[in-house]
């Protein structure tokens, strides 16, 4: 079983965040330089992904959206197989059929990456129902964006999960953007967490760029779900530091907003805190960084070496 679980060490969180950042930036560079298919990177959102996933147990299950590389890597995905999938290679998690946008990895308990915005919300209730009816211990974590919260499925999913008391942790990664539309153009308020209240679902909001806070709140939320059997909504306030999909020059983004959030980039923030508190020294950090880069170098080499699927794979796996 290659699922990552985390003990208390904050250094492990940093290590994972560094890996994700290195992966995402390399994926973007490969797109720009070598015409590798573009991806929706999670640069800037690493703390949200790692903080939540680090709170999970091995039995918990994940559904996520198009911006899923961070969730997958935090859960223990092999960056080589991930990149192979992005490149449509046979060694990818889905034999190259998915590409970056629909990656699932059964061995990691990642049931779904939905690129239909809202698809993760629609299926999460079913996975929750399986957990409940088959008396399996794991909680279902459903990552979705502030954009997905505008889809009707948000309403339908949360209401059903509340009525049927399904063990689901909804995690809204509110990164202020919905592709080329700012969140403010799509809702009057600023809180998506509060949208849970009418359904009778408890919720909380957390600084999504602070991995320790995210992990603390996610742990609390998971505990409450395990104890009560009821769903919970956690909103992580964060920001999409690169564009929506590579390439994207973000010409439409207010530079002041972007600058303000760059100043809150979760990686330097965590690094500075750990360096200051003495939990990390410069040498260890640089070793971690090189380690991440090495793993990504190896991943790229693996993915590029991996063959494309044979043409007859075009029509396999359609029916069981």
């Amino acid at each position: 079983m290659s699922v990552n679980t985390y003990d208390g060490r904050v250094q492990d969180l940093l290590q994972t965040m560094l890996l994700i950042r290195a992966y995402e930036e390399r994926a973007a560079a490969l797109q720009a330089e070598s015409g590798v298919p573009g991806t929706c990177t999670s640069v800037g959102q690493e703390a949200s992904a790692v903080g939540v996933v680090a709170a999970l147990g091995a039995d918990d299950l994940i559904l996520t959206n198009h911006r899923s590389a961070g969730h997958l890597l935090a859960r223990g995905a092999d960056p080589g197989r991930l990149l192979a999938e992005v490149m449509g290679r046979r060694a990818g998690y889905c034999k190259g059929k998915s590409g970056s946008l629909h990656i699932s990895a059964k061995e990691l308990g990642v049931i779904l990456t939905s690129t239909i915005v809202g698809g993760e919300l629609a299926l999460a209730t079913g996975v929750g129902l399986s957990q409940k009816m088959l008396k399996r211990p794991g909680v279902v974590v459903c990552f979705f964006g502030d954009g997905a919260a505008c889809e009707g499925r948000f309403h339908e999913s949360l209401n059903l999960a509340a009525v049927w008391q399904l063990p689901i942790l909804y995690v809204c990664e509110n990164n202020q953007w919905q592709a080329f539309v700012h969140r403010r153009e799509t809702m009057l308020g600023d809180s998506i967490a509060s949208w849970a209240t009418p359904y009778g679902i408890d919720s909380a909001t957390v600084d999504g760029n602070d991995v320790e806070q995210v992990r603390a709140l996610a742990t609390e939320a998971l505990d409450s779900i395990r104890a009560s059997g009821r769903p919970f909504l956690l909103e992580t306030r964060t920001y999409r530091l690169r564009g929506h999909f590579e390439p994207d020059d973000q010409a439409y983004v207010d530079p002041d907003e972007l600058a303000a959030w760059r100043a809150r980039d979760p990686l330097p923030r965590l690094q500075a805190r750990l360096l200051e508190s003495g939990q990390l020294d410069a040498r260890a950090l640089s070793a971690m960084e090189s380690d991440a880069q090495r793993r990504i170098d190896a991943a790229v080499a693996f993915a590029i070496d991996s063959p494309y699927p044979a043409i007859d794979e075009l029509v396999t796996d359609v029916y069981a």
Partner: protein
Amino acid sequence: MAHMTVQEAIDQALAEEMARDPSVLLLGEGVATKRRALVDAFGAERVRNTPLAEGIIAGTAVGAAATGLRPVIDLLFAPFLCYAMDELVNSAGKLRYLSGGQFSFPLVTMAMTGAGWGVGAQHNHNVEAWFAHAPGLKVVMPASVADFKGLLKAAIRDQNPVLFFIDIGLAYTSGDIPDGEHLVPLGQAVVRRPGEAVTLISYAKTVAVCEQAAQTLAGQGISAEVIDLRTLKPLDEASILASVRKTGRAVIVHEASRSGGIGAEVAATIGEHAYDALKAPVLRLAGPDAPAPASYPLEQAFVPQPDAVVAAVKRLLG
């Protein structure tokens, strides 16, 4: 042999499969109210009324199917499938493929459709052809009470998502069902009446229309073979082609609108693969390219009638 209505046949199929396999469960708006006996037999956990929200009913079924349950969902009337298209098409139909075969989606979606109740176009729209044009799905639409039972049981056991359409006009008809375990495999058409001069191909309510037409034609010395497709995807091309190769003539009859209906696929398949055997053009008799009206005489006129089938056959033979 037991005599029962289609509703009873469906209940029986559900009860047998739920008894056989504890992972089968039934979800939908009112299923627990309307199929009370199933609640009594299998408990409220496995027969669940839902909020009024087709999208999440279907989504729940897809997620549950991927993770060990075997849901049957009742979405009531076919036009309501429009609220669940994403879950049925983009998730249930595609995610097995997109996952490289990691997950399967054994689930059955039931819906009624067709003329007979005068409920109009937001309850009555024969959209089975849409799902035949969506990869990864299977589509079933029975014509006989026995097939309602046998196909539903097979659909529940299938490892793939199956759309199970119930023709409103048949929903309360009755008929005989063989005793014991009665399974009808998906993907197999059946010859309802053998014949030599022409093949009448249909499914659901209009199978009976073809049978009536065949009867009339027999009285006039014309021998018509009637094929009930039963499964619309995968289509039983072999049975269709074998019959048409024998008769050399085909008329396809269904209630769904003509343009882009199942009849188009059947006609195109015949035209491509039985070309040499054809003695006449392949004709389609189908509903008009119009929404289904509520008004009784208009609704009746929507459905192809036996005399039109007879006339079409005579045109082919004339």
